């Protein structure tokens, strides 16, 4: 069973359309959600939480529909959003009491362990916590009810590298049991390269890719070379997101249907990073 399935999901918001999405988030893996600002990542995450309602189509979580199983579905989800959403005038422990009351599966010892590991001061007010501390608390609260699906919207943005690494390590450990899944959106593709198994790539409200990270990276080559190589139209037309300067050119090229003759000996071709793919494909319609 998949953790999340989008079936012909469409959501319109003014001019912006998140359109006809058909993909799934696999159970037991970490899936990274990538795309430029305004591409629809947050809307997509909110639609999984049933905060954004589809104009047509459906989102199913653990094979169930929000129409008749809303409470059951949400009990299995932990969430961390990229914004303040706690009651700021309460202390960490007061807020914990509120969150824990909604989850029958709340594990106090797990929460206390994270509180200790993250060095969170229980008596400090939420408003007095730094952004990193708030994220730590949100993560502790999300994990303490032992959800099967953890959803995080930009959890590592604004965090220092040490804690970012710590979060990634927690996520890796969290899915070890095999039936748990993580979906997180991020702008920091290095985080995804480190831990993501699958990638969902959205741009301008359209699904550009959904599959394994290796599949995405292996479908392109990063090509660089002198400007003369671009004089043959056959090659130039294949380069995606072509960037030129006095020293030469740089761009992506899709591997599918590519032969060695297409590249030529003066062009270097290497494996792209996720960042390269995001940057060079941003203009592609």
């Amino acid at each position, binding site marked *: 069973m998949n953790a999340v399935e989008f079936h012909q999901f469409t959501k319109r918001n003014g001019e912006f359309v998140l359109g006809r999405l058909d993909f799934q988030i696999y159970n037991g893996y970490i899936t990274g959600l990538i795309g430029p600002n305004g591409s629809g990542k947050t809307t997509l995450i909110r639609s999984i*939480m*049933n905060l954004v309602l589809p104009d047509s189509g459906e989102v199913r979580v653990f094979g169930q529909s929000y129409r008749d199983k809303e409470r059951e579905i*949400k009990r299995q989800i932990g969430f961390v959003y990229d*914004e*303040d959403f706690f*009651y700021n*005038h309460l202390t960490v422990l*007061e807020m914990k009491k*509120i969150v824990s009351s*909604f989850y029958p599966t709340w594990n106090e010892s797990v929460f206390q362990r994270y509180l200790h590991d993250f060095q969170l001061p229980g008596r400090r007010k939420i408003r007095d916590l730094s952004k990193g501390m708030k994220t730590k608390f949100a993560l502790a609260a999300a994990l303490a009810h032992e959800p099967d699906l953890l959803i995080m919207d930009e959890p590592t943005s604004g965090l220092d590298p040490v804690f970012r690494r710590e979060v990634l390590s927690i996520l890796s450990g969290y899915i070890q049991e095999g039936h748990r899944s993580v979906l997180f959106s991020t702008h920091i593709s290095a985080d995804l390269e480190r831990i993501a198994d699958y990638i969902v790539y959205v741009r301008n409200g359209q699904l550009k890719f959904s599959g394994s990270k290796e599949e995405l990276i292996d479908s392109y080559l990063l090509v660089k070379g002198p400007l003369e190589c671009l004089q043959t139209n056959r090659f130039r037309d294949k380069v995606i997101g072509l960037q030129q300067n006095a020293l030469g050119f740089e761009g992506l090229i899709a591997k599918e249907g590519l032969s060695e003759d297409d590249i030529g000996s003066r062009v270097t071709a290497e494996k792209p990073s996720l960042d390269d793919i995001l940057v060079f494909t941003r203009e592609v319609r």
Partner: protein
Amino acid sequence: MIQLLMKDIRIQKRFIALGFVFVGFFFFILGAFEGMPLSVPAAIFGHFLIVVASKADEKNNNGRMLASFPLRRTDIVTAKYAGIAMFMAIAFALTSLWRWLAGIFLPARELPWFSAQSIVVTLLILLVFYAIYFPVFFAAGSRLVQVLDLIVIFVVGGAALLVIRLLEWTNIGVGSFIRSLPEADGLPLSLWMLGGGLVLLLLSWCLSVYVYRSKNL
């Protein structure tokens, strides 16, 4: 839904204490609103708690957090309406406690009094207020919440005054009828008024559920 009501009490602990002190200080120690029935300070106290609880849920994306918990949106709306009864009960209980405490030092005739009629009129005013307030609250959310109570008070108060004036100009003695309401005798009228208020609140709940269930958060 019980968790939501408990949550409202938890986030309001300080405001409940503050309201309790406020009622004691202004109504019993300073003797403000002297000659008024006890339902007036209780209603002001209850209204303060209900509105602050609503504002707290919209101030900091908290509404999005609540909707992400294992709850249906109908539960969230219903809890807000149930909160009216809960906070009014707390306010009336704590105001009665002040009256009992003041009764130790003051003669009974100097204390604010309870009257069924005044309680009914006060509750009716509040029920009408919340019947309008909550659908707008669930529709507009954080955009209006900081000033929503003022908007409802001025719009509804203004509209009501306008209607009363228009009726009086057409020689319908609605003003004298309203003035006679607090002194009016008889349980049936009170119950009819309260019943009407509750029906209005039920319609308001249906509207709020419809609005909130179709809203993107």
